[in-house]
């Protein structure tokens, strides 16, 4: 009995050690760029893990924020201008569609649903070229209107899939009672459904915001005036060809991460629910 208990204790300790070693390994790269962002270049080159000479400086952040060719100050503002409407528009449009798919029945409904949902899987490069040509014809290349419209469309497939699954779990009694009382579908949607699905809406906002914020490819092909570049486009441009200014680059990276990281700190469970709900319940 004592040996068995000892064995269990050993297993427990071992599990903890392994788990925390993995966690430590995972956090090291983040620590690396954080240390590089607050230390002068000589100390970064010597290795950020060495502390025989340790100076904290904000100059990397100032350099990244006021970068002569691609300042992050402008990048963050541009990214916010694109990301906020690109999160809210598909949320509204997608919620309406998900409700429609879940509550109405009409011919070819499931085919239409499948067609839309399939687009979740497609690689961006599969539509990038015609998208560029189309935006060019519409005069929307190098405008945020074009990019926002596209991101809104691009977010719809997963939002509709996610919300339709969610709607199936919402009991229909309340709606039916309202319907008997003569409420229109729009009234039911706004008055009864929206309040009930709030947690799902948070998940969508959190993930859609993070994905649009992180987008690089669509920004790369659609936005090219230097002043209009989004934050994600500015980071590779700071790299330079031969000499890499690691301090500035790491500071810019931290600035870029900070927005979704703050969101993640507050809405962590919604992030995870969104990811899991999007793939599992289907």
């Amino acid at each position, binding site marked *: 009995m004592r040996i068995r208990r000892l064995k269990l204790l050993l297993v427990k300790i071992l599990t903890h050690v392994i788990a925390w070693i993995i966690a430590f390994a995972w956090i090291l790269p983040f620590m690396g760029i954080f240390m590089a962002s607050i230390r002068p270049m000589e100390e970064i080159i010597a290795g950020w893990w060495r502390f025989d000479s340790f100076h904290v400086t904000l100059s990397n952040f100032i350099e990244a924020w006021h970068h002569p060719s691609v300042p992050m100050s402008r990048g963050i503002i541009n990214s916010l201008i694109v990301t906020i409407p690109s999160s809210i528009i598909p949320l509204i449009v997608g919620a309406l569609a998900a409700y429609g798919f879940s509550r109405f029945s009409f011919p070819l409904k499931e085919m239409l649903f499948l067609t839309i949902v399939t687009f979740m899987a497609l690689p961006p490069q599969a539509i990038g070229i015609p998208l560029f040509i189309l935006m060019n014809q519409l005069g929307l290349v190098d405008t945020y209107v074009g990019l926002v419209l596209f991101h809104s469309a691009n977010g719809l497939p997963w939002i509709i899939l996610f919300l339709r699954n969610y709607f199936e779990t919402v009991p229909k009694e309340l709606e039916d009672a309202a319907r008997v009382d003569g409420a229109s579908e729009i009234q039911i949607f706004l008055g009864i459904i929206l309040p009930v699905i709030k947690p799902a809406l948070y998940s969508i906002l959190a993930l859609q915001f993070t994905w649009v914020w992180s987008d*690089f490819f669509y920004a790369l092909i659609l936005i090219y005036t230097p002043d209009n570049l989004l934050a994600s486009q500015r980071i590779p441009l700071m790299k330079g060809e031969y000499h890499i200014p*690691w301090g500035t680059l790491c500071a810019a990276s931290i600035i870029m991460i900070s927005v979704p990281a703050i969101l993640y700190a507050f809405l962590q469970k919604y992030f995870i629910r969104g990811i899991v709900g999007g793939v599992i319940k289907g």
Partner: protein
Amino acid sequence: MSKGDVMRTRTLILNILIFLLPSIILVSIFLIYPIFYTIYLSFIDIDGSPVGFENFRKTLFRSDVLDFKRIRGFPSVSPPYGALVHNVIWIAIHLPITTFLGLILAVLLRNVKGASIIKAIIFMGMIIPLVVSGIIIHFTFEKDTGIVNVFLGFLGIEPKSWLMYPETALYTLALSSVWIWTGFSMVVYSAGLEAIPKELYEAAEIDGTGPIQKFFYITLPLLKPVTITVVTMTILWELKIFDFVFSSTRGGPGGATNVLALQIYFDYFFTIPSRPDLACSLASILTLITLAVACIALKPVIKIAVRRYAV
């Protein structure tokens, strides 16, 4: 049809318009139209005349996509082997490690104090922009600045810039992308584990089943649908990898880390003169592969849809 029926049909049509039309319009213009246009462009040459499957032959059998000479020399001849091969190598390295690690973590963390903190750390990889991940990995594997070299030093391996050499760059990127994606498999497996009824384990314990047997005879079989989801979603992610490579190596050195998505971008937006024929036919091939994989992921959705349709 009675008057009431007409009214009801009219309301239904009106409702469908209000609720579904905005989505249908957006998706049609910005997703459906472009994908068909990509397919159309892959069957015509630069002058606009139809060429059948000629573009597909041209785009596949070029050294940027399939470098047969170098592939034959594998493994003594280093990358580049061509973008298509690089994607396959990426999947071969990244998929088993990230899936297995996610599963192990999901199982281990059920009995660890501070599990939520560890989960939050590992899931961070999924939150940060891939452009930044590319910078972080480049920094971490660089000769002077990379802490990886410190740990490899303990094993007697000389420090080097792992992304600067064709012999190591591709394998380093594929391996390090485990750091980005393991958060996904971990949370999905965690949710899958929670769905397994506790009674099953209790019953097994009464029968005297050990923890390892429980894992292999209860946990693993019941996680099969979750594993299918994780594997397909992971392959989809590996097939469209772009930002991460762009910001870390730009496909270099000498094309050693080039991948399909990057090649499509270069063909159209970078090469002078632009080559829509090569780019779009390659994009169509990538789409075809993706759809084949996605069918597995979407199988439950398709099943539900078919069942609803039948009823």
